[in-house]
């Protein structure tokens, strides 16, 4: 087999590992979102796309369309919130909400409009990108999912698919049909004996690992992190200690969007991302998440890295069929998962 050629194998492995690290981040976000909100979050990959393409637009010194999406969602979310407050007889708090949202909106617009044409240093642009993409998470949760809080998993899944189409369509409007790459954070390669690894790949792997460690500490050590775990384990129990499902949902979606945007920034230099890449990127995270049964974080991460490796080797030897291979792989995994998931009879004492 050619792929075991000592000059090719390490390159493919490094490639697979780099992409796998990003898929693993997405897989973690997907598991988190599903566990806390029961939403199968198909649009996770769109956050990646918005991350890369927002950064690419800033590189050109233009204002990214992401800003308009944030502002529109902020407006809708504020009106929805105000309306539900008013219905509960708290019209004044509703007005305050609208006012605060307006101030936030103007602030975001002013900062973006000022920074975008300056072609600021890369790290400033990265922070601005994260600052624009991360709020999409909680805003989309408020506008799309919170009104569906009591719906079944299947209804939420259909809503996710619908949202995925909306975001893909908007990405085409904002960023156009051409793919973009962002500049590498570091140039050059690291050579260890036979293996050559670019500094950029190393950065992706290290940053992903650091983020995973950060998430681990957040969930194990902090009250908000524990609250999210508690909501995932037992919704009613969580509400009984005062954790509201909506605030847990918002926090979860913020994390998901942040992880997605970071993934986009990390992957940007090595992959040409187009407006519609999100679905396939997200689905690869999904294969990992499903290997973890949508419950286990370590299994999900391991599964996603495996997907990255398989994809890398498949694209070398059977490039036209690589998607078929990756997605056919999901079927036996799904079957195994659904057979090992025990369902408890509903009628009990």
């Amino acid at each position, binding site marked *: 087999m050619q792929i075991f050629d000592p000059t090719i194998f390490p390159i493919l492995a490094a490639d697979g590992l780099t992409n796998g690290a990003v898929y693993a981040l997405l897989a973690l976000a997907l598991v988190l979102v599903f566990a806390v909100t029961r939403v199968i979050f198909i649009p996770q990959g769109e956050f990646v796309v918005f991350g890369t393409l927002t950064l690419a637009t800033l590189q050109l010194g233009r204002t990214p369309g992401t800003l308009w999406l944030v502002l529109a969602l902020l407006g809708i979310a504020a009106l929805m919130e105000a309306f539900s407050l008013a219905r509960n007889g708290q019209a004044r708090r509703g007005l305050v909400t609208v006012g605060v949202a307006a101030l936030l909106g103007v602030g975001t617009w002013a900062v973006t409009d000022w920074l975008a044409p300056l072609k600021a240093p890369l790290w400033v642009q990265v922070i601005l990108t994260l600052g624009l993409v991360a709020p999409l998470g909680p805003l989309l949760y408020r506008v799309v999912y919170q009104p569906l809080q009591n719906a079944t998993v299947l209804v939420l899944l259909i809503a996710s698919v619908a949202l995925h189409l909306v975001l893909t369509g908007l990405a085409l409007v904002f960023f156009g049909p051409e793919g973009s790459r962002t500049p590498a954070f570091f140039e050059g390669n690291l050579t260890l004996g036979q293996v050559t690894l670019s500094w950029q790949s190393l950065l992706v792997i290290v940053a992903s690992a650091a983020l995973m460690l950060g998430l681990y500490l957040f969930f194990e050590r902090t009250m908000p992190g*524990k609250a999210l775990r508690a909501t995932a384990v037992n919704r009613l129990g969580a509400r009984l*200690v*005062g*954790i509201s499902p909506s605030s847990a949902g918002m926090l979860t979606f913020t994390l998901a969007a942040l992880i997605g945007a970071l993934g986009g920034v990390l992957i940007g230099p090595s992959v040409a991302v187009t407006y519609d890449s999100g679905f396939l990127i997200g689905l690869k995270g999904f294969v990992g998440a499903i290997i973890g049964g949508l419950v286990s974080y370590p299994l999900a991460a391991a599964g996603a890295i495996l997907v990255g490796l398989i994809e890398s080797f498949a694209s070398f030897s059977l490039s036209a069929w690589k998607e078929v291979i990756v997605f056919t792989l999901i079927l036996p995994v799904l079957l195994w998962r659904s057979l090992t998931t025990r369902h408890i009879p509903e009628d009990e004492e």
Partner: protein
Amino acid sequence: MTSNLLEVRDLHTRYGRVEALSGVSLEVPAGHIVSVIGANGAGKTTLMNSVMGILPSTGELIYEGQPLRGIPLETRVARGISLVPERRDLFASMSVADNLTLGAYSRRQQKWRGDLDHVYERFSRLLERRKQLAGTLSGGEQQMLAIGRALMGKPRLLLLDEPSLGLAPLIVRDILRIVKQLQAEGVTVLLVEQNARASLAISDSGYVLETGEVKLSGPARELAQNPELTASYLGG
């Protein structure tokens, strides 16, 4: 004269088109233990869930002189109402310590560490098992953990839904003794039980619920002697 911590007036709760509570009224005076007893399907759990705000209901719920209408469950917790539900609803895959810590979630300050020690003092078994996962505890320990978690929220009104469910008599006795202690420490308790004799023994007053309505009520001691109560349980 004691004032009422909680007053329920003409409470109606429906599941779809079926009415589970039809006009329940009761009073929980501050500092008292009040029992609600009744058979399966009488509406006891529905009553607790309506007071807590888990189920939507019509009628009046007045807590500390303020109506609870339109106030979500999470805010009721922050205002000092805690429910220990029938199924306990623990965080099964989290440690005992984490379960207790989360009990203090609604109290933004950090002062809960002292309360944690206090819960461990009260339930020494929980201290021994603080690193164990909640789902691996025995039934009695889980009930203690559920009560301990509720106490971490420093409730003024504690709602206990069938704490004796599925527990051996000795453990039931322990748990009811703790409820009595809590009263001495100033917590008001609304207790739902099937175990009529035991719960009335520690209560100040009681209500008997049947098919969503209050059938009997009165001071606990009188109610325990009431022949109608025995009749409705043993058909004799």
